[in-house]
Each structure stands twice: as structure tokens, then as C-alpha cells.
């Protein structure tokens, strides 16, 4: 009975509550009540979809990771923009990226990062969570792309999700 009234994911609830306060243009009685209801009901409904919590996540490494990704997005955008405007045809490639991460949340963060950085889109994850299929817009060689992703994104994520 009290299970239903609890907050299974306190952090998610807190983030939802704060997000709602920002969205509703100033804190008022109504926004607090609705924020609490949302913070309670959304984790309850989505409970079954969440992967198991990793044993230990070093959250304080996250801001550094986000900054690095933002920098890469800006830098790589220029090369993609140049590629679109230049007359030569791109050399696209499907690349199978061998994953060393094993936590589903870490894999989805890596896949999202790959999709956000210009030039690569993650297309699929194999059913056994071992390989990530990446489509690269302009790839020199497979190994180049794999090394770049491993060094700049997967390594930091591995340290975060150890």
C-alpha cells in the first residue's frame, strides 16, 4: 500500500519537480501542487521502463563530459557544414562499433552522444548489447572513427559508470 505512495527514484522526482517550476513561469501554490503530483506519478508510470540502477555513478564527472561534447559538437559542425557546401561527394560508411560499456544507461548515453556530434548517427544496438551500428557521413577509415569515439566518449563514460 505505501509502495504506491513512495518516490521510487528520488532524483528523477526532484528533477521533474524543478523542471516543472521553471516551465510554469514562477513558483506559485498551483505549480508546487502540480509539480508534486507530476514528480510522484511520472516515476510510478515509467518505473518498469528504467534499467536497473548502476552500482555507482560518478555524477560529478558529468559536467566535464557535457562540456567536452558541446565543444565537439561546435567543432564538428563546421566540418559537416563545409562538407555539405563543398562539391565533392561524401564517403559514407556503416561502422560496427564494439562496445566495452555494459550498462544500458551508459550505452544509451554513448549512443545519444554519437548521434548529437555531427558526422555520425548511431543507427542500432545489437540485441546482446555488444555492438553499436554507426552511420558516418564521411569516414576516412573505420578504425579512425572507432578510435576517436573510444578515446573521447567511451573512456570517460567507463570511468563514470565503474
Amino acid at each position, binding site marked *: 500500500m505505501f509502495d504506491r505512495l513512495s518516490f521510487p527514484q528520488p532524483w528523477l522526482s526532484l528533477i521533474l519537480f524543478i523542471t516543472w517550476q521553471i516551465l510554469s513561469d514562477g513558483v506559485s501554490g498551483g505549480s508546487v501542487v502540480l509539480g508534486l503530483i507530476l514528480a510522484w506519478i511520472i516515476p510510478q508510470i515509467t518505473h518498469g521502463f528504467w534499467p536497473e540502477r548502476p552500482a555507482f555513478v560518478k555524477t560529478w564527472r558529468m559536467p566535464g563530459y557535457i562540456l567536452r561534447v558541446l565543444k565537439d*559538437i561546435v567543432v564538428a*559542425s563546421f566540418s559537416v557544414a563545409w562538407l555539405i557546401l563543398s562539391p565533392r561527394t561524401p564517403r*559514407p560508411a*556503416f561502422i*560496427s562499433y564494439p562496445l566495452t560499456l555494459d550498462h544500458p544507461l551508459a550505452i544509451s548515453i554513448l549512443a545519444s552522444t554519437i*548521434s*548529437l556530434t*555531427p558526422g555520425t548517427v548511431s543507427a*542500432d544496438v545489437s540485441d546482446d548489447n555488444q555492438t553499436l551500428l554507426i552511420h558516418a557521413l564521411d569516414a576516412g577509415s*573505420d578504425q579512425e572513427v572507432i578510435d576517436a569515439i573510444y578515446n573521447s566518449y567511451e573512456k570517460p563514460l567507463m570511468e563514470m559508470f565503474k
Partner: protein
Amino acid sequence: MSPFAEYAISALLLFGGVFTLIGAIGLARLPDFYTRLHGPTKATTVGVGAIMLSSVIYFTAIGEGIGISEVLITVFLFMTAPVSANMLAKAAMHIGVKTMEGTEGKPWEQ
């Protein structure tokens, strides 16, 4: 509003506009489905980011407090764009969309 803020806002709007335009050109110019996927998810990320920054500067400069809602919009966009790109790619692989000549590697059959 200080002239400096005005220059910064104009520059960011122009920058964002140019990148969004390049994304649109890419959508029209790139040869096959998978390469076109890169246009909207890519150049637009930077385009929207720049336009969002200019909006934050504008609302801060006219003194309505710091615009956190714009940052939130960008965060939502950054969270949803990869998912939609992933879904599009998966759907394309599922129905077997043709890839352009010279594409290395093949999509999976799963």
C-alpha cells in the same frame, strides 16, 4: 540594452540562421536517406543552440531575469533529437532503404 548585447545577439542569430540553412541545404543536396539523416540532427543542433543563446542574452539584457526556459528547450531538444534519428535509421534499415554507391559496410539484418 547595451550595444554590446545587441551585437552579440545579432551575431548569434546570424550564426544560428546560417547553420540551420546549411542543414536544410544538406537535406536537399546529400545523395541518400542515411546521409540526409545527418543534416537535420547536426547543423541544426548548433543552429538552435546559437539562437537559444541569443534569446537568453536578450531576455537577460532587457532585465526579465535569466532565461532558464530557453536552456530547458535546448536540453529537451538534445535529448529527443538522437532518439528520433535512431528511430528513423532503424525504420529505414527495416524496410531496406537503398544506400548510395560507395557506402562502405552494410546495415544489419536483425
